[in-house]
């Protein structure tokens, strides 16, 4: 088995306020293998975005952040890199695509200029013509019609879907080993979503690039991912291959997530939901963070006092952070 492209262990990301310390991400571990797509699923606030930003050193300015743990990309721990070394990795070995494509592009520079910059910062000796050719090639790859004209246009002249294609072009520009896509289609029309995903899929295949797909949309994950990691309140609660996860979930939260997706087949008056709310980093419950909302827990002691580790389950490569994971299958069918 080849080395994972990205290997994250015990990642902790927190910020300090005047009085206390909040851990937004509390001990997250996962692997991404070469060429595979890992879906990272969770509610807003589960820490999925912050984990990735923390790994790349892109946390928003303002709070004083601390990032601990290990994030080994192609043999180097990104969390030990600083300044110039980290800069070289970003955009070249690992790229990131964000949720809001129109605001993610600089309004005062042309689109062509911005894509070219993505290549130029890592290939400073390349000729202007070579760079332009490469940009046109990339724009074509992501399905932007009339790339020559579009090269000279500004971001405000692009629709959301077009802008996201540009972002994908920028992300793939230097054939990275890994692309992290944070809710890439959430801000787009449903009809455009499918197109964008196809563009992404084509691009990744072209360069055999691994993908971390962050989303709260389970159907996206079912469609694109090879493996899935489910996050809750800053921790990983379950990881498995995609088919295995959907057919044999082993964590009550995952079950709850799947149940809350409305079905086209059944009529219903109310949408199913998991009662309660995800705890904020300031109010994490003792023991298992999910236990106050858990249908399986029944306030059993282990749930209340012991933080569950990721238990290996009956299926290979399927782990779940639930003391009673073996009971989950049975009850899920109920």
């Amino acid at each position: 088995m080849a080395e994972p492209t990205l290997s994250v262990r015990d990642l902790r990301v927190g910020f300090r306020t005047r009085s206390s310390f909040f851990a937004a991400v509390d001990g997250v571990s996962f692997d991404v293998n070469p060429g595979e797509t890992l879906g990272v699923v969770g509610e807003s606030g589960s820490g999925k975005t912050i984990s990735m930003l923390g790994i790349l050193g892109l946390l928003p300015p303002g709070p004083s952040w601390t990032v601990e743990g290990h994030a080994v990309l192609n043999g180097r721990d990104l969390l030990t890199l600083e300044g110039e070394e980290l800069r070289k990795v970003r955009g070249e070995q690992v790229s990131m695509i964000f949720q809001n494509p129109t605001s993610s592009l600089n309004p005062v520079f042309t689109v062509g200029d911005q894509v070219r910059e993505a290549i130029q910062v890592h290939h400073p000796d390349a000729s202007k013509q070579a760079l332009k050719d490469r940009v046109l090639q990339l724009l074509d790859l992501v399905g932007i019609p009339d790339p020559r004209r579009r090269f000279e246009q500004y971001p405000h002249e692009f629709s959301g879907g077009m802008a996201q294609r540009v972002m994908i072009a920028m992300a793939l520009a230097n054939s990275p080993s890994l692309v992290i896509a944070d809710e890439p289609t959430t801000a787009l029309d449903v009809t455009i979503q499918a197109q964008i995903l196809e563009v992404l899929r084509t691009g990744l295949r072209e360069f055999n690039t691994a993908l971390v797909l962050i989303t709260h949309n389970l159907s996206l994950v079912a469609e694109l991912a090879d493996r899935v990691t489910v996050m809750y309140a800053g921790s990983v609660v379950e990881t498995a291959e995609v088919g295995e996860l959907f057919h044999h979930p082993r964590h009550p939260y995952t079950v709850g997530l799947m149940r809350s997706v409305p079905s086209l087949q059944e009529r219903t008056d109310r949408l199913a939901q998991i009662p309660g709310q995800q705890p904020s980093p300031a109010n994490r419950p003792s023991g298992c963070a999910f236990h106050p909302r858990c249908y399986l827990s029944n306030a059993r002691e282990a749930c209340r006092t012991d933080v569950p580790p990721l238990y290996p389950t009956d299926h290979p490569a399927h782990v779940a952070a639930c003391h009673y994971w073996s009971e989950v299958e049975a009850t899920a069918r109920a």
Partner: protein
Amino acid sequence: MRQYLLLRIAQLIPALFLASIAIWALIYLLPGDPAIAILGPNATPQQLQDLRAALGLNQPAYVQYANWLGHVLRGDFGISYQTGLPVLDLIGTRAIATVQLGVMAFLVSMLVGVTLGVVAAARPDSLAARLVGTYNSLTLAIPSFWLGLLLILLFGVWLKILPPASGFVPIWLDPLATLRSTALPIITLASYTSGIVARFVRSAMADVLGADYVRTARAKGVAERQVVWRHALRNALLPAVTVLGLQFGAFIGGAVVTEGVFNYPGLGTLVLSSVTTRDYTVLQGAILMIVAAFTLVNLAVDILYALLDPRIQYG
């Protein structure tokens, strides 16, 4: 774009027209009789009456205004009551002197203000940022005439390295001499605005540095220095340009105080002296010039803004 330009230039006309009425009326309403001012307190009533008739001061207000406007449009700003010289000539050299001072002060305040603003925004918790904050407070609080006097005292009298009074030396003739003679008024004029610009740029930059597209630039691997000075600043300057434009107009007008302190032969001192001597024609001409300059600068700022921001579409 062309349509927009033509439209804006066309809008200048009613604006200047209204301004001319206001200027003329304001001065007309000022207490004080130009005839007395010219002939002195010992003039006889007959002499005064004759002079008033000669100057057309007995005609109804609107007639006087119409006459004045008619002349102005032909480039004839009249004759100075005091010196007998054509007003336009008098204003001419003074205007150049003030514009030169204004432009240099503008450049200095922009350079200083933008640099300080960027530094403070890029490192919000550093000593540099705190110093910039102090600089802002000081420049806003210190009155320009006091600063001017202090600079004269320090550099002109105690250290004797710069001349205490400033003369006008056209910069194209002798740049070094120009700098020597106008360094102090430039600093005085620039200080207040540099504080405003620094504060404005700082807050605009702080906003921009948290923007999504700045995050994208970092994610691409762009060096932090480029992120700040190229990606962020270009966007932060957009609102700052508008502020700068307004301030430039203030340079021309507000130079009155600074020029007075340094006895600099510009429009400011001209306005001051013509007020004291009741030289109405000169006063009207000078103020009309200042208003016209202000409106033109505003137009230039709007155009500049449209050029800098590709999102703006006119017409």
